[in-house]
């Protein structure tokens, strides 16, 4: 009877289990949303009444808005930098059999394996030595390093998929290397580059630990949320968290849509 039990579990138990895992992953996130429109000053479930007061408090507070704008600026700079540098590196890394690619590939994974706290500490030591403490551009550079592995893997994946036949053809027909890149290669990998940029943006936008170590008075949004969560945990955090969830989900689904549409067009 083992056989029928196994088959039954495949048909019913596994899907139910999978839904359970999805709920575990997503439910705590979704529960944040009703908390942001609850009238009580402290977190109480189920939410009481209905109000937009916490959103108004967020948008009316100079502290919150300054922190948000600062984070947007850092994340945008970091995303542009990581995408440009990462795409250039991916052009080399995606070439099969390239010695440089084989040597450099694992090195770029470094920031994913070394705990962020070490990088945060090292950044603080370096920044204090060079007088960069509190520098927006400095922290954007460090965030770009964190995002670099994501950019190179995403873009070199796309490059390997499309191959370089067309670019070679363009070169044979007399295009210069940069012309072949702009007019032939880039259009085919554009969806991957866009989604890499989106992810690079969010890696920086959500990063707390490094910012906490080196930004000092120049509070970023995650630093502000962190301070609020540690001290008074107001429902404003729920409102900010809701905004973040909505923006993140929208960006992830949009970049997925762009990628899928491109795949469909490619056949």
């Amino acid at each position, binding site marked *: 009877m083992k056989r029928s039990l196994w088959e039954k579990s495949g048909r019913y138990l596994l899907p139910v289990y999978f839904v359970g895992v999805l709920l575990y992953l997503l439910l705590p996130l979704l*529960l*944040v949303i009703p908390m942001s429109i609850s009238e009580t000053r402290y977190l109480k*479930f189920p939410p009481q009444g209905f109000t937009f007061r916490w959103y108004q408090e967020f948008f009316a507070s100079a502290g919150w808005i300054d922190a948000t704008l600062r984070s947007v600026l850092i994340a945008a700079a970091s995303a542009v930098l990581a995408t440009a540098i990462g795409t250039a590196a991916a052009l080399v890394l995606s070439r099969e059999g390239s010695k440089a690619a084989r040597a450099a590939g694992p090195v770029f994974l470094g920031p994913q394996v070394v705990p962020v706290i070490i990088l945060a500490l090292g950044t603080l030591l370096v920044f204090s030595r060079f007088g960069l403490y509190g520098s927006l551009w400095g922290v954007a550079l460090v965030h770009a390093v964190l995002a670099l592995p994501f950019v190179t893997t995403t873009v070199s994946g796309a490059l390997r998929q499309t191959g370089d036949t067309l670019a070679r053809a363009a070169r044979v027909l007399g295009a210069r290397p940069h012309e072949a890149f702009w007019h032939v290669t880039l259009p085919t990998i554009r969806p991957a580059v866009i989604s890499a940029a989106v992810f690079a943006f969010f890696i920086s936008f959500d990063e707390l630990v490094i910012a906490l170590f080196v930004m000092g008075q120049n509070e970023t949004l995650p630093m502000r949320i962190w301070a609020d969560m540690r001290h008074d945990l107001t429902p404003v955090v729920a409102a900010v968290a809701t905004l973040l969830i909505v923006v993140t989900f929208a960006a992830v689904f949009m970049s997925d849509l762009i990628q899928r549409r491109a795949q469909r067009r490619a056949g």
Partner: protein
Amino acid sequence: MSDGVAMPRDGKGAARGRRAPLSSLWLLAPAAVLFLFVFILPVGEVALWSVQGEAGLSAENYEAALGAGPYRTILFGTLQLSFGVACACILVGYPAAYFLASRPPRNRTLLLLLILTPLWVSVLVRTFGWIVVLGREGLVNSMLIGIGAVDGPLQMLYTRGAVYIAMVQVLLPVAILVMFSTMTTINRSLLMASRILGASPWRGFVHIFLPLSAGGAVNAWMLTFVLALGFFITPALVGGPKETMIANLIATQITLTLDWGLGSALGMVLVVAGFAVVGAIALLFRRVTGLSGHGGSR
């Protein structure tokens, strides 16, 4: 676009153009520079600070970090907690990855997207969600009191259990993704062949699928373990003083006691301990199965 040298039109030149020309290696230069100054330099600086004493080179920071006392307790606590979290991620994630890999590719994409979306939401927001669920007047307590299971609210936040639940939730998508990608490379016709030869589906799973997916599970374990070692936000927000991890201790050394040398030594110990455990596991796995973590699926 892959070569920076103009490709001559005769056959011999084309053959040369096929090989990787050196000039376009310069495209790696910006990444290498960024890496050198923003990754290697800071990590090197931590290593340097860790061996600096009052008078030149010294091991005093390491003695303080590793000698008997609260720091060593926290170090072992961190290793233990990360070990448990990584194991939980594999146990919870394996069946989910198996289910995902057995779906037809068409609806697989959407399910995978749902699993991975939380990865892109800030860990702060995800931890906040657990405060809503596990808090004194949170979801679980209000439900338990509602059905009359308990008289007063249970203390769930600021416990080891809360740290486990929240950390596994943060790391689970990573574990599922790694195991899933190994599982999709497994040749399913092997399972079919075993069925034709009379093996039960269960037997086919245990003797074919499980060994072939073990490499992915080991890789997932190592990755989640290393990531868990560096956790900072979750233990600080939903754990009690007993759940203090090395990262929190480093932050305290840096911001409050201003002992940068000791903080650096603790950081180095964390990295070395992480690599040591991962190396030992990888070696053990290769010794036991004769497979490398990556080759297991072929």
